[in-house]
């Protein structure tokens, strides 16, 4: 049976919904109507396909990682090379879709939040290509650890506004973007970067990212003649993971694992493992698992990777977590850094620190699998942006 999620109120079982100030409610309604019309419109779909192919460089390869496979001595490991997309991560898939929606709604200004800077860069890129005014909100802590991406966004003509409030990371950038949207909602579209926020965002972002899994499914069937045994992806908000998983949800033989940021270890409290350490609550317009204290205040999070450093998770993930369809786990900063270097040395591919979390966990699972089994890692982004930070951590600067 084909799933119909979310329901028409934007709920994934008990999760999701629209918890936003009244000022934004009409805009969310308009966005939903416009998106549903666009989804049925063959001209819109053709235009999006055109940009995905000619501009973003899709389809991305499904690459057999021979040396990594041999080193681990278990399942055959494939990498879905989203790092080869234009701008260096899967984020462009969603930005192209929402950019075209912006034009369709007749708006001329876009805003976005960014953590690692990948979504900010993708938004700034699309804004340049579509001649839209663009403002990116970014926490000052993230601006420091992702200085290269700040420069890229400015080069692309976007204004990067530093966010000083709260923990000065992704969560606070979203707060500030939502305040901007509340103020300029009539002229501005908020390009939310993950499967987060109020309905219809989790649905829209998922649908635009589902191209990852559609391609991967076709590619693995062509190469291996069978479905994969396991999919592994990192989960911050969870858009790359859902993008890969979505086309396989109806195949019970395909196991899926989402990897959260274990930071310095779950026992230290310095992490972003929402499923292991969180409880259900409401943040940024949606009900989902959340790192919060007993008074319902949002807890500070920690991860070496800015893109996973967020206290909540996409509501659809919470639904699959409770259903048991997807397993969620975490790896620590240290494990992710090891995987970052291992992939560089064995395959000549430097992954984003976010994606390195998925690589790290796959490395734990692959040796216990049979050699004829296959595993796909979503390599959601490339690591150029992280090189300086990793050098700093290793004390080589």
């Amino acid at each position, binding site marked *: 049976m084909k799933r119909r999620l979310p329901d028409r*109120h934007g709920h994934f079982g008990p999760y999701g*919904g*629209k*918890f*936003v*100030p*009244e*000022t*934004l*409610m*009409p*805009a969310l*309604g308009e966005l939903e109507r416009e998106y549903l019309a666009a989804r049925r419109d063959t001209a819109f779909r053709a235009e999006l396909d055109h940009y995905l192919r000619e501009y973003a460089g899709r389809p991305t390869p499904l690459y057999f990682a021979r040396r990594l496979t041999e080193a681990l001595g278990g399942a055959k490991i494939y990498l879905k090379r989203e790092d080869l997309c234009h701008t260096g991560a899967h984020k462009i898939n969603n930005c192209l879709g929402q950019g075209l929606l912006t034009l369709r709604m007749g708006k001329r200004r876009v805003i976005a939040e960014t953590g690692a800077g990948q979504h900010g860069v993708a938004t700034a890129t699309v804004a340049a290509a579509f001649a839209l005014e663009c403002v990116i909100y970014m926490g000052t802590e993230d601006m420091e650890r992702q200085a290269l991406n700040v420069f890229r966004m400015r080069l692309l003509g976007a204004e990067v506004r530093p966010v000083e*409030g*709260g923990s000065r990371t992704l*969560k*606070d950038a979203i*707060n500030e973007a*939502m*305040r901007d949207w*509340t*103020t*300029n*909602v*009539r002229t501005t579209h908020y390009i939310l970067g993950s499967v987060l926020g109020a309905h219809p965002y989790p649905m829209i972002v998922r649908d635009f990212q589902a191209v990852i899994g559609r391609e991967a499914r076709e590619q693995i069937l062509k190469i291996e003649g069978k479905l994969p045994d396991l999919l592994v992806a990192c989960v911050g908000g969870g858009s790359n993971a859902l993008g890969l998983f979505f086309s396989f949800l109806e195949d019970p033989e395909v196991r899926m694992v989402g990897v959260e940021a274990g930071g310095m270890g779950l026992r230290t409290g310095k992490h972003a493992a929402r499923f292991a350490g969180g*409880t259900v*609550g*409401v*943040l*940024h*317009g949606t009900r989902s698992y*959340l790192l*919060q204290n*007993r*008074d*319902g*205040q*949002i807890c500070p999070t920690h991860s070496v990777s800015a893109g996973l450093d967020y206290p909540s998770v996409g509501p659809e993930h919470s639904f699959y977590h409770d259903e048991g369809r997807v397993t969620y786990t975490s790896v620590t900063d240290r494990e992710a850094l090891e995987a970052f270097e291992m992939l560089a040395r064995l395959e000549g591919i430097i992954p984003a620190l976010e994606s390195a979390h998925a690589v790290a966990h796959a490395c734990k699972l692959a040796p216990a699998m049979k050699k004829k089994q296959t595993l796909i890692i979503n390599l959601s982004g490339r690591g150029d942006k992280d090189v300086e930070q990793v050098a700093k951590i290793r004390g080589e600067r």
Partner: protein
Amino acid sequence: MNRIDAAFHRLRKEGRKAFIPYLMAGDPRMDATVSFVRALERGGADLIELGVPFSDPLADGPVIQRASERSLWEGTTLRGVLACVRRIRQQSQIPLLLMTYYNPVAKYGEARFARDALAAGVDGVIIPDLPPEEAGGVRVAARREGLDLVFLLAPTSTEDRIRRVCRATQGFVYYVSLTGVTGMRRSLDPTLMEGIQRLRKATRIPIAVGFGISSPGQAERAARWADGVIVGSACVRLIEQSRGVRDAARRLQAFASRFRRALDRCRKRTR
């Protein structure tokens, strides 16, 4: 009739407009909040909104964001705010509303929150990130206890939403005067009159206007069309700029009387 209904009923009979100041509970300390409420009441406030601090106040501008941070830093919790309300109730019968984001209420438990809030002496609750669509549980709990749940409307609200929200709201409807977050503005939104008139056509429930109203002059103009005026950031900023709690209380009382006089001028003019 609860305290909120009684206040609007009395004001309407007298041809007067409600002055509703907002304070962040626990800013700078919880015992200060008790004396601030008393000061505002002496100055002529009709109802008072008490803010419950939240780590991610996305409907608030910088002034209330800072107050929220100060209050959390002092260790304020929803439970602590309810204790503060109990202390206020020993001295005052002024109608009190809590303004809180949804997550602290969800974490506290909706039914338990409604019960404890009413028992403490709270009359109504405003939850800016909880539209009627998602308010099912809170509405049931609030109705059962007799706690008013006040919903908001904004300049962007469609006719359809105006009808829906006016049906759901209790006590009064909170009209957000501008398209944006809380905070002081130089002038009133030019669409304010038109906006309030749209609501009047849909409901007979009192209309209170908030967001962006910071001076007695602005309050007077807004009150020509509305039944009440909510002043938040200006009030919070005055506390921020005061030298100590006693200085703040004294200034809050004077602040409230300036608004009281302005709103009462409005009564004479509209008669």
